[in-house]
């Protein structure tokens, strides 16, 4: 029994020691896991900002953007977060509704496709959804969403569930923005090409790299990882003539955080090179602010969408449930 | 309690009622202190139930169980001045002979030097010297029951309940064991209730006989009356038609 107790203590201690001392000035950043993992932007961002501000950055990370918003809802006004980094534009309307966020004040140097004017959230990177395919399995990838929908049902694609996954919701919105009222019949056709609908991106991408499906729903930037980190051109994104759906990742200040003197400094830092230079090759997205370093040449080879598709956050918030239900009724037949 | 006292205590069932499923029992009997009483009767007549009521494994629905004049009806088994030897499962199979006996002294097996001496003596007395370290599975059936008797010795309680403890032993061995019980009784003078199916066993050591039928006491009396052929008719029928052998001696598979 004593041994059990001391073990419990030591487990608790592991957690306790990991919490930094409260002495120095501190900024608490809530974000998602892949941001803070050692190969993500987190470590670089922390190092660079701490050198600049002589303060301490405390990351708290959860699974993904949706979990991030939920964590915030769960914690309510008692949240320790000063800044929440990692929501996307499909979540911002809902995030605003919580009343937990404060306006961000003056921020300059942000460029995202279609421009940016939100007073609460500040973008830090963006990317486009795309169908990524295996060049060894698929010689002629679909050149449009229409070709994807109407193509050979034996060439399968792995997609994600819009009820549980951000890219899954992305595809749903993409199809909606292209097909409008005809989305349901488009899904009815596409359904035959869908190998399976996974709960998250990881599962479908895993199936894809295992060779189970020659196509997967991912990002235009996905091939950059394979080209830079794995030195292979095997996986490429298909360029769709209707355009690609845009995902913008943003940060927001909490009401508590607005009082933190470090905050404005962090926002400036976030949109500057100290942060932005890390984005392309750690988060595998496009930087939304000023960079000092040019992008790796691999990024030049990526699909550049002819047209950017995006609903406003309000449209998404208003229609998400109805659209998901529509998707569900077609797909579950 | 002292290890040398010649103690005995009368056992009395004061209008005890008990039921189990469909079977109902009603016992009103006194067992004289310091005597060996054989409890006999057909299968299902309530012999084991009677012992269980005395031992505290069963609680009477009404009536009282008195030992040495004290009402123990509500006392848990271990708190009663009673030791019991069962037909089987008297030993913990993973504990050595010594430790099995030691449990009679201390349920936590924290044994003093006196305890150890008493255990050695008891093992010696029951013919188990040199087998202290054996495990039950390394013993014969008779030896296992000797271990149980050794534990009775070190426990030293004024009442001993024997629930067919030797039913599965051969005649010669059984006779030996009965003599051992008689000797121990001679030394300690405890009150013994002895359930058996074998008239010759009862005849060999019992002073009294209590005969049960249909969940109640049908007859009681001195053993010599019962076995002299002058006992109650029901008893005569029981041993007569059985020719001294119980029809259900092998009732329990072993």
């Amino acid at each position, binding site marked *: 029994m004593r041994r*059990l107790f001391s*073990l*419990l203590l*030591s*487990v608790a201690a*592991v*957690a306790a020691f*990991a*919490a930094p001392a409260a002495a120095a000035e501190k900024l608490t950043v809530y974000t998602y*896991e*892949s941001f803070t*993992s050692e190969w*993500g932007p987190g470590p670089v961002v922390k190092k660079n900002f701490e050198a600049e501000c002589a303060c301490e950055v405390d990351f*708290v*990370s959860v699974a993904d953007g949706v*979990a991030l*918003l*939920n964590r915030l809802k*769960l*914690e309510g006004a*008692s949240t320790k977060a000063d800044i929440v980094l990692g929501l996307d534009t499909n979540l911002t309307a809902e995030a605003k509704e919580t009343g937990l966020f404060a306006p961000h004040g003056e921020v300059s140097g942000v460029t995202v496709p279609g421009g940016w004017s939100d007073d609460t959230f500040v973008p830090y990177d963006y990317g486009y959804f795309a169908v990524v395919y295996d060049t060894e399995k698929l010689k002629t990838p679909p050149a449009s969403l229409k070709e994807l929908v109407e193509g050979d049902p034996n060439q*399968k694609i792995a997609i994600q569930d819009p009820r*549980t996954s951000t890219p899954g919701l992305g595809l749903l919105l993409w199809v909606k923005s292209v097909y409008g009222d005809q989305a349901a019949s488009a899904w009815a056709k596409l359904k035959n090409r*869908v*190998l*399976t*609908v*996974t*709960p998250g991106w*990881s*599962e479908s*991408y*895993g*199936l894809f790299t*295992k*060779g*189970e499906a020659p196509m997967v729903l991912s990002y235009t930037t996905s091939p950059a990882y394979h080209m830079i*980190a794995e030195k292979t051109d095997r996986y490429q994104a298909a360029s769709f003539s209707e355009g690609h759906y845009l995902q913008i990742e943003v940060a927001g200040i909490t009401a508590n955080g607005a009082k933190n003197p470090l905050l404005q400094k962090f926002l400036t830092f976030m949109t500057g090179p100290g942060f932005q230079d890390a984005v392309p090759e750690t988060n*595998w997205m496009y930087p939304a602010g000023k960079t000092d370093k040019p992008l790796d040449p691999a990024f030049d080879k990526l699909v550049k969408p002819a047209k950017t598709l995006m609903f406003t956050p309000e449209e998404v918030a208003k229609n998400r449930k109805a659209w998901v239900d529509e998707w569900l009724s077609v797909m*579950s*037949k | 309690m002292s290890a040398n006292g010649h103690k005995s205590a009368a056992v009395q069932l004061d209008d005890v009622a008990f039921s*189990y499923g469909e079977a109902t029992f009603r016992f009103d009997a006194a067992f004289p202190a310091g005597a060996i009483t054989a409890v006999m009767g057909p299968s299902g007549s309530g012999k084991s139930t009677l012992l*269980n009521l005395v031992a*505290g*494994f069963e609680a009477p629905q009404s009536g009282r169980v008195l030992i040495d004049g004290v009402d123990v009806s509500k006392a*848990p*088994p*271990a*708190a009663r001045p009673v030791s019991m030897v*069962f037909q*089987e499962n008297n*030993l913990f199979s*993973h504990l050595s002979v010594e430790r099995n006996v030691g*449990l*009679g002294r201390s*349920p936590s097996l924290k044994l003093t030097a006196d305890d150890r001496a008493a255990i050695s003596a008891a093992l010696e007395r029951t013919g188990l010297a040199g087998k202290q370290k054996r495990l039950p*599975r390394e013993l014969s059936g008779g030896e*296992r029951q000797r271990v149980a008797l050794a534990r009775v010795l070190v426990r030293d309680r004024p009442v001993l309940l024997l629930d067919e403890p030797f039913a599965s032993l051969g005649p010669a061995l059984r006779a030996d064991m009965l003599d051992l019980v008689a000797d121990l009784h001679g030394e300690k003078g405890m009150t013994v209730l002895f359930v058996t199916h074998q008239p010759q066993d009862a005849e060999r050591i019992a002073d009294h006989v209590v005969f049960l039928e249909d969940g109640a006491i049908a007859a009681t009396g001195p053993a010599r009356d019962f076995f002299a052929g002058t006992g109650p008719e029901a008893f005569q029928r029981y041993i007569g038609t059985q020719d001294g052998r119980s029809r259900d001696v092998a009732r*329990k598979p*072993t």
Partner: protein
Amino acid sequence: MHSFRRNDSRITLGVLALAFIATLIGGALVGLLAAGAGDLSGAVSAFDPYLLRVARFTLWQAALSTLLSVLPALFVARALSRHPRFFGRTLILQLFAVPLALPALVAALGVLALYGRAGYFAGILSSATGSDWPGIYGLSGILVAHVFFNLPLATRLFLEALQAVPTDQWRLASQLGMGPAATFRLIEGPALRQALPGIAGLVFMLCITSFTIVLTLGGGPAASTLEVAIYQALRFDFDPARAVALTALQIALTAVVVTLLARLGADMTGESSLSVAPRRYTTPSVAGTAFDAALIVAALAFVAGPMLATVAAGLQADLARLVGEASVQKAALTSILLAFVSAVLAAVLSLALAMARRALALARRNGPRSMLEFFTDTGAGFVLVVPPIVIGAGWFLALRHLGSVFGAAPVMVAAVNAVMAMPFAIRAVRPAYDAASERHERLAAQLGIAGWNRFRLIDWPVLRRPLATAFAFAMALSLGDLGVIALFGSDSMQTLPYLLLARMGSYRTADAAGLALILGLVCLLLVFAADRLGKERTA
């Protein structure tokens, strides 16, 4: 037969264990209800036609999975029990604990590596069927993966039940010259039948709450479970009332099935006696042996296949670098610590419940079962169908006003994992405890051996082995946990599966495969250690 049990300390312990479990589950539901009471519309609107379809599919796949896992497991366990000594038997049993520790995604990929469109068998299957092998997406894929998880589990639990059969019965069987059929009908059958409702219920509960497997292998949202709807209600819609309503539906459906299953069982109270060394006396015939061997080999192949695929994928990773990484080492240590603490707690909980159940059953004799007794037995198992996300979110809501939620994280993760592992542990512990009690109850009462003394001197030596089995299961389950940790985990507390999914989520599939291999090895190591712990000390 023993009536003086009303103040039995075992019942007190059981009540304490139940109180702990009830607090953990109840606290969470109260937390959610308090937050969601304001708006019940979501809870009401949840019950739409789609939900009915989902509920139907949930039940259907769970029932089929249970049948396909439990039925073969009966025979595999019987085969293993008939051959108590052969080369590799221990290793097989140890391997059988590993699937539980694998995250569902790893298992799904392992299964697909064999039976998928690009799997090892795709070529053979394509030429056999004359067309391109379509993979096992759909119900078949779900079933294969569920059987992969649950067949080994059920086998080990059935084996535990068979090993609790008193030696005398085997002796009697051989003495009476019973053939295999008669032995099965008269001895193995009843023992298995007694264990069947509990084990089938357990497997059913695991399958009814399946999430990743069903979605990934199911082929589309037609194959979905209530668990997904609960997850969605909390994650996307953040509708606590709806989550609670769906959880209640899940519990109710499970209760119906478990009640039906209970009718299959028989209350067998065998007379037992002094047990000699566990030993079988019947010598199986050559044909019987061949049949048993084929069964064991088939089960092993089925279970080991996806594991081997996982190993093969893992070997492609840069294992030396992975093992050298500080984050991997820290995650491994955290995993082992958490799993150990959870397993100890699970073993304690299950023992307390098994003891209390036995004490209550003895006290009531033939009378009707009390609610308390029900809860110490099957009832406690229902924690399995309360999704971890519900417990996590509920406690989050309840604790948020009480300071640091993260401070409570390790305690919460260990506690929830322990409670989730408890129903497994109880299946391993209960038959052994009941059998031991059958032998020792009167003697212990007579000699006044109770409480700690009884545990130390009487129960512990007999329960070492089943407790070790329980411990191994609990540890494997906690090792593989992702549900609880996902909500409470933070950067200071990353476990191996957490790290694995994180790597998977950032393109590092090779790393993830390597981590899966490491996770499997860690699990095997822990199971091995637990087995050693359970071996009787040689006197």
